[in-house]
């Protein structure tokens, strides 16, 4: 079990007049080595949830277990080791870069966790490769890179600690569509090829749909859904109407098709290719008459 939340509640300073996105009795379990997508609108508590994964926040009620660490209200576990094993990438991580070379920034984490310089350097190189950049980036100034490259370097700076669990908050925000797709694929590889546990917060479900095996939907600090992609597709209409979940077009198209032809029991087709092929088969089966010119 990588992550196990037992009725976790978190309240920002309760006496505060301004309300913040808190958590209310969130229970969830995530297996090791799975790719999880967490969806929900701004203010749904996603970011608060993430900060519990590596002990930046501790629950005010309930119990959080991450790997073999337990976090409870008042408890004081060894956070340093937890933070090495659970890498947390914040939103717009490029804003945290501060060194004058990519190499130094990448080595910052490993050195903090007690690696010697040579090992830290090796980690830096490995992390760069993981995000699809090569060693030639090491001596470069991170502030002179393009937006997409800076984002990748910043993600690599967390990967350099070789965490077992990687948690990312909106990793693709503000990138161009092509870079978004690349980054999502990269994260997918991280899970499939290296066996990492990957947890991604996103409001664009479509991007992570090809990779995520589990979905969680948050709404106003509560977990309102957890299930497989197929279950997400089945419940999409309800999640949209009750919790204003932004349901991507590919799910809507499939659900409309499924409703029309009674395909609810099938594994949903969620890419344009698969869906087109399925439609073609439906047409061939003579279920519908082909209309219009061919």
């Amino acid at each position, binding site marked *: 079990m990588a992550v196990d939340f037992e009725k976790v509640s978190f309240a920002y300073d309760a006496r505060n007049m301004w309300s913040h996105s808190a958590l209310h009795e969130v229970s969830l379990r995530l297996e090791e080595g799975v790719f999880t997508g967490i969806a929900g*609108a701004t203010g749904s508590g996603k970011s608060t949830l993430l900060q519990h994964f590596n002990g930046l926040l501790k629950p005010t009620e309930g119990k959080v277990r991450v790997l073999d660490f337990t976090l409870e209200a008042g408890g004081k576990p060894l956070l340093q080791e937890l933070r090495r094993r659970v890498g947390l990438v914040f939103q717009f991580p490029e804003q945290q870069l501060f060194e004058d070379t990519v190499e130094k920034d990448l080595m910052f984490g490993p050195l903090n966790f007690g690696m010697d310089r040579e090992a830290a350097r090796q980690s830096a190189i490995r992390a760069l490769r993981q995000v699809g950049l090569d060693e030639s980036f090491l001596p470069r100034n991170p502030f002179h890179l393009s*937006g997409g490259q800076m984002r990748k370097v910043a993600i690599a700076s967390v990967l350099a600690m070789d965490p077992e669990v990687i948690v990312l908050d909106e990793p693709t925000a503000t990138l*161009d569509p092509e870079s978004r797709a690349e980054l999502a694929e990269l994260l997918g590889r991280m899970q499939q090829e290296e066996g990492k546990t990957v947890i991604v917060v996103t409001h664009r479900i*479509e991007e992570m749909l090809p990779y995520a095996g589990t979905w969680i939907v948050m709404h106003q600090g509560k977990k309102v859904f957890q299930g497989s992609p197929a279950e997400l597709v089945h419940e999409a209409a309800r999640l949209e109407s009750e919790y204003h979940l932004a349901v991507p077009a590919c799910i809507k*198209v499939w659900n409309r098709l499924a409703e029309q032809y009674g395909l609810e029991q099938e594994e949903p087709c969620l890419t344009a290719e698969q869906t087109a092929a399925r*439609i073609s088969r439906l047409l061939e089966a003579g279920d519908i008459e082909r*209309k*219009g010119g061919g």
Partner: protein
Amino acid sequence: MTEEQPAYHVQHVSFAYSPEQPVLSDLSFSILPGSWVSLVGPNGCGKSTLAKLLGGLLAVNEGMIEVQGIHLSSATIGKLRSHIGMVFQNPDNQFIGSTVEEDIAFGLESRCIPREEMKERVHSYAEKLEIGHLLSKHPAELSGGQKQRVAIAAILALEPDIIIFDEASSMLDERARGELLDILRGMKEEGRYTMISITHDAEEIMASDRAIVLSDGGIAADLTPWELFQDDQLLQACRLIAPYPVRLEKELNKLGITVPQEIRQSGEVEDRIWPLILKK
């Protein structure tokens, strides 16, 4: 000014921040009043610079920009400024006032509009953008989507003819992005605004009338959004991905299933597919 006068007439415009690195070279195009144009292209292609030139925040090195028939220059910018509004990417960094009300009023104050009229405009445009109940709020109490609505209300309150959106939706979540798109569509329908949006967002491009594709400081293509999303090479060069319904239709085409022309011309992309595959 007649109706036929283009909103923008750009002739042989070049621009460089430093002589060694030209950003834009020899651009020429016109934009009709009341139309909605998307400026697209990969990062670093100069589209944000072009937006600043069109908004009069930068001056061209060579060539000429005419706004509604008037040459845009340091002498005319003061007067032309009131015709052009700009909405930027980061909702926080364009929130000048310390409350919603003050922020909407900021531009009106610059224009020395009398207090009574200011109050009226602040309230009516806040209502229009559905933020009337937030007037006394501090920006820290607002979501990104709400702040972006404030930014739009602040611009609309100045009653410009031309509005430039510089990646205005890119920092918003999906829901807020959808809502912003609806606001833009509504503005388009009103017909009183010429709109220019710089964006990577497929749906936003699709909602506009025309896409100007920039690449390496020049115009690589000038076409309808529909044509843009059919051209895989161009899409790749712009690092864009077509909206899902368009991709689906393309895949259907590959399998020999085509959509009749008359359906293609009308309505939303998504709706084009349904007549084809739904049972009667």
